[in-house]
């Protein structure tokens, strides 16, 4: 028997870490979905879909802008020393994913604005007339649009990857300390984004394409989730105990029912029927995917905080 008693009871730290509440999972989810939307709309731009007036690449960057701003707000709300937030931008720390992320986020905004300028939403162009001339300039250079698409895809991927690396670089939490986490978060961001764009897409072509793409993302996500768990289960005792939080522990119901079942497998089955024209495209499947992606972030952030080098062997 090994019994450890500790006189420390620091708020937020003991008995198990609870420093990150709803703000961080929301931020990681919004960051992930925006990353996926940038990749998707960037791809449409790159493929020259701007010729189609119904292309979702005109609306998606604007929505991304709003969602990312909510994500940044959530991140800001999580900070404990808010008045000092500007300190992040007085330095660049090469070993800190948090520093990388802060700078990537700042670079994402001008890229989103460039995307929005390709076709300015009506309510904006009426108020800010000068934007029209910029938009005309961009549209007179088809290669410029292609390049904006390419840059969007690259920065979207960086953003999606960073949301996973942020957690996986924290070696003290065995559940996060896994090199597949960035792939999982990138794929989950892509699947949620494909689902979201599918929901708002006006063109039939896009709905069909995005449902197909979503099926690929969801299948890959499932494979990576399995690899993620295998990676933990074949590692040290603390990693095995961390995996057990998801497989059979406190987070198992959320993980199996909402992340795997309702978030991946059921929508995948529905969408497989839809892309094979057996049933009509249903909004229910993409909605399930988006909710599943959100719950995935909550489960990983919370179970990761509970996983520990000390208590992993004792808590089940």
């Amino acid at each position: 028997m090994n019994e450890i008693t500790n006189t420390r009871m620091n708020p937020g730290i003991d008995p198990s870490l609870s420093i990150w509440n709803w703000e961080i999972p929301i931020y990681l989810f919004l960051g992930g979905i925006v990353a996926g939307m940038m990749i998707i709309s960037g791809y449409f731009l790159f493929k020259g879909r701007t010729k189609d007036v119904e292309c979702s690449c005109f609306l998606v960057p604007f929505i991304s802008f709003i969602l990312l701003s909510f994500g940044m707000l959530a991140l800001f709300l999580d900070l404990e020393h808010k008045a000092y937030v500007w300190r992040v931008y007085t330095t660049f720390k090469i070993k800190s994913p948090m520093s990388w992320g802060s700078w990537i986020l700042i670079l994402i905004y001008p890229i989103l604005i460039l995307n929005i300028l390709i076709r300015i939403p009506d309510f904006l162009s009426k108020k800010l007339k000068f934007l029209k001339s910029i938009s005309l300039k961009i549209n007179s250079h088809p290669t410029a649009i292609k390049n904006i698409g390419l840059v969007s895809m690259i920065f979207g991927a960086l953003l999606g990857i960073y949301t996973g690396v942020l957690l996986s670089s924290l070696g003290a939490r065995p559940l996060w300390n896994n090199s597949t986490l960035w792939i999982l978060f990138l794929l989950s961001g892509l699947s949620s984004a494909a689902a979201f764009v599918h929901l708002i897409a006006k063109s039939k072509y896009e709905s069909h394409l995005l449902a197909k793409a979503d099926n690929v993302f969801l299948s890959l996500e499932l494979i990576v989730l399995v690899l993620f768990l295998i990676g933990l289960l074949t590692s040290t005792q603390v990693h095995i105990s961390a995996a057990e939080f998801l497989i059979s522990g406190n987070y198992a119901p959320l993980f199996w029912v909402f992340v795997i079942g309702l978030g991946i497998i059921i929508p995948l089955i529905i969408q497989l029927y839809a892309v094979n024209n057996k049933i009509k495209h249903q909004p229910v499947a993409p909605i399930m995917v988006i909710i599943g992606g959100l719950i995935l972030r909550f489960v990983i952030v919370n179970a990761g905080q509970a996983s520990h080098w000390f208590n992993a062997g004792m808590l089940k």
Partner: protein
Amino acid sequence: MARFGMVIDTKKCVGCMDCVVACKTENNVPEGFNRDWIVQDARGSFPTVNLEIRSERCNHCDNPPCVYCCPTGASHIHNLGGVVLVDHELCIGCKACIASCPYDARFVHPEGYVDKCTFCIHRVEEGLDPACVSVCPTYCMYFGDLEDPNSEVNKLLNSRKHHAVLPEAGTKPQIFYLE
């Protein structure tokens, strides 16, 4: 270059918590928070039980993940003795460092910045021992330069069996417990 560390004799420690009180007083640690604490590690079952009492705090690791992950440089390695410190004016309270520490040695101070043991660097710079070391009634704690072969800490480490806490986490902790 000095490398400060601590050696704590678990054969002498009785878990009286004087070190905890001394730290709270010396460093104005707010109510409900601790920069150092006592762990009782009991192994076996009666009558063959082994009890180790440890006074724990930030290990001032040589490979400190808390410093690497900090986006502002608030968490840094002090130029004197490799002590790991937090600059309150630089800390944004993102808590990445808290999540990165396998020892859970850090906490958010009610004023918003992240706080933890400083090895009482303000005392050490004046040639004094950290407050916890200086008050221990059983003299079980030793503070000094681990790089100096003639330091008391080094002599103890060379002559007694010892261990660190969770060395497998890979952060190279600089507090050693004599067995």
